[in-house]
């Protein structure tokens, strides 16, 4: 029996396919344009394929949000499958117009209650919120309960991203406050976060090991010894995300998700952050 409360997100949630299917989460893909061809993010082009092609593209691939029509189609499908309430959780409005298009579309579909929520996050930060919502819905929570849960998590979820370079963020126009970090001739790894839904610099260090250690320190500072729900992500950098994973597991008490979720960044996010990224989303569980 399909739940009457359904969860929708977009392709930047970076959740593994098995989990999406298991929890019946609907995904509206953003679009990525590579050398003139438009692909549905994660559907027509996978992260692996994208990073393989990236060094050879003539110009930096660009991205675009789903059109309101794409959301409408998904809402109508879910409604026809029996949904009474649809909860949509999306990539930060400070990074993309996707959540705005979703809201517009929400006003156009009758016969089902639709609530659109800006996660103020991205990648696995968004993914963790979506997962929690979908689990609750599958376990019989009411629409209102799921919305309350989501709004609570939006306040608690944090992300840290270690990038190889700020070049991609700058070219894609999303560098936000991290512009202050530009320009160094030395090999410095920026550690970034999302604050109020916008890219914000946290620290900069030399070397990947130091970057991982600093990230662990930062998580320690913000988690206050509590148990954590954690998910990690990388952009064509499996070896470094595994190093992060090792450190996280040895330093923190994590819940079951921590063992399972190491995702690769979607092409849409990938073109904005560049290969080499290692990231983590987390929230404390009281």
């Amino acid at each position, binding site marked *: 029996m399909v739940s009457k409360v359904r969860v929708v997100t977009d392709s930047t949630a970076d959740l593994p396919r098995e989990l999406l299917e298991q929890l019946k989460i609907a995904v509206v893909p953003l679009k990525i344009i590579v050398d003139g061809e438009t692909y549905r993010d994660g559907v027509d082009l996978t992260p692996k394929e994208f990073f393989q092609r990236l060094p050879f593209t003539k110009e930096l691939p660009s991205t*675009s949000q789903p*059109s309101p029509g794409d959301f409408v189609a998904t809402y109508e499908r879910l409604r026809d499958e029996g949904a009474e309430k649809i909860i949509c959780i999306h990539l930060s409005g400070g990074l993309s117009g996707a959540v*705005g298009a979703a809201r517009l579309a929400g006003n156009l579909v009758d016969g089902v209650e639709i609530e659109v929520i800006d996660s103020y996050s991205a990648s696995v930060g968004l993914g963790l919120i979506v997962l929690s919502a979908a689990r609750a819905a599958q376990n019989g929570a009411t629409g209102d309960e799921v919305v309350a849960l989501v709004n609570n998590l939006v306040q608690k979820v944090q992300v840290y991203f270690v990038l190889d370079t700020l070049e991609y963020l700058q070219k894609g126009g999303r560098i936000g406050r991290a512009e202050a970090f530009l320009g160094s001739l030395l090999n*410095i790894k920026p550690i970034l976060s999302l604050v109020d839904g916008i890219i914000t610099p946290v620290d900069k260090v030399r*070397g990947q090991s130091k970057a991982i250690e600093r990230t662990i320190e930062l998580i320690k500072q913000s988690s206050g010894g509590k148990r954590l729900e954690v998910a990690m992500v990388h952009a064509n950098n499996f070896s470094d995300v595994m190093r992060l994973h090792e450190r996280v597991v040895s330093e923190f008490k994590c819940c079951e998700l921590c063992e399972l979720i190491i995702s690769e960044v979607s092409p849409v996010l990938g073109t904005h952050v560049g290969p080499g990224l290692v990231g983590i989303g987390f929230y404390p569980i009281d």
Partner: protein
Amino acid sequence: MEILNGAQLKEMILVASRNLTAQKDLVDSLNVFPVPDGDTGTNMALTLQAAAREVQKLDLVLLGEVVHKAATGALMGARGNSGVILSQLLRGFAKGIGNKDTINAKEMAQSFQAAVDMAYKGVMKPVEGTILTVAREAARAAQENCRRVTSVEELLRLTIKQAKVTLDQTPDMLPVLKQVGVVDAGGKGLVVILEGALSALTGEEIGLEPEITPLTIEAIQSIEIVDEIDLADIEFHYCTEFIIKGQTLPIEDIKRAVEPLGDSMMVVGTDDVAKVHIHSNHPGRVLEICMEYGTLHAIKISNMVEQHQELQVAQVQPKASADLAAKPYGLVAVAVGEGLCRIFKSLGVDQIVEGGQTANPSIEDLVNAINAVNSDQVFVLPNNKNIILAAEQAKGLVDKSVIVVPTRSVTQGIAALVAFDAQSDVQTNQERMLQAASKVVTGEVTYAVRDSKFEDQDVREGDILGLGDGKLKVVGKEISEVVGDLVTMIMPEHGEIITVFYGQDVSEEEARVVVDMLEAAFPDCEVELHQGGQPLYYYIFSIE
């Protein structure tokens, strides 16, 4: 005409779409808000194309049906924020028209207002200085004028006039537009759409001639005009080249005005951007004449006779005032060596004082540097133990608040700068910078200037010396060997990055050989090579 029907509106939408598509690159090139991703023109064009496709399919051209189909098509195909706003404008316009078969000027004005109301509703945080403002002011002008104007065509003309006026004002409403020196892309897109619609009504041709493909600002700027000059008989001495940015630039007029001033003249461009190139003996006059048409940018004047002389004038328009505002913190560092100075600048140092291991800067040099920084709170990095004292003295001689971070080498200085955070308070920065500086292990390789003794060894003048954190550790005959031995001796337990700066007496090839050696000897470490250009020290390196 006094009324507008469905067939006319259909034509207006189709022509508007073609017009916008033809000019989308120009609109793209203006895109800096909300993110400078350069796709506003493309997005609006694709959105309007989606509307046009729906309208094209219609056989029965009832006004209500045309506008509603256009609105739905736009909504379904809306691309990007600007596309979504455009689709909302269309939806509102459609709502205003409702089921009517024709509208008069007054009803058109009301429908414009309905469009604006719908667009504002659809945006969570409306920002002034964007397409919304242009649309709003245009609709207001339409409402005001429809009382005395009964011609639909005339009303649309007046609406467009106001839209253009407001568009020109957008840089005053949105700071980022002013900083970059452009009008709002979305607003420009809207003007292009309205102009297209008007031309469908009047049958007049608009702006762009079909043979000229729209040039992006980049394209125009990068047009290379190659001069083939026989230096022997140059009549006009100064090769003068610049960009004019303006509104509806009259290219032909500009050509006529500039032509008499020299030869090899070329003027290329579009309504808003043009590149001017001419050989003239009065470059100043050329500039002055062109200033009448717009703002001048990327001005290059070179004296073709004296090939080495080059006059490069920066932007004539005053830059955004943000450049001149005081910063909360200033950074002064002592360094010597071209490469090292470049690196310090790239790390955010405002003033470099030349000094270091050979010539220590005077207290006056330090005072001048501190005063030259546009900030009341200054951090000073002496990068040499002999300069720390001078820096402390300089502190007492200035009016500003100065903190001396007692760095003893450029490597410590660099580590301190990496730890510096403009967002943190003074105390936190002081602590972090000190801590970072203390964690760095520093190596220096130089040569002995006289005979001496080191432990049980005789040191001859010209021997290679390796110092670790300022203390002599290794003596040898061969530079590469000493580097290797020194690194081995001072390598800390968790050393991971060796950053090597090679001095002015070392070539890049020699440095690379040393780097290869280090990478082989220390496979767990990352080795980074930079040109330091410092005198005396063949190599300075840090291990972190």
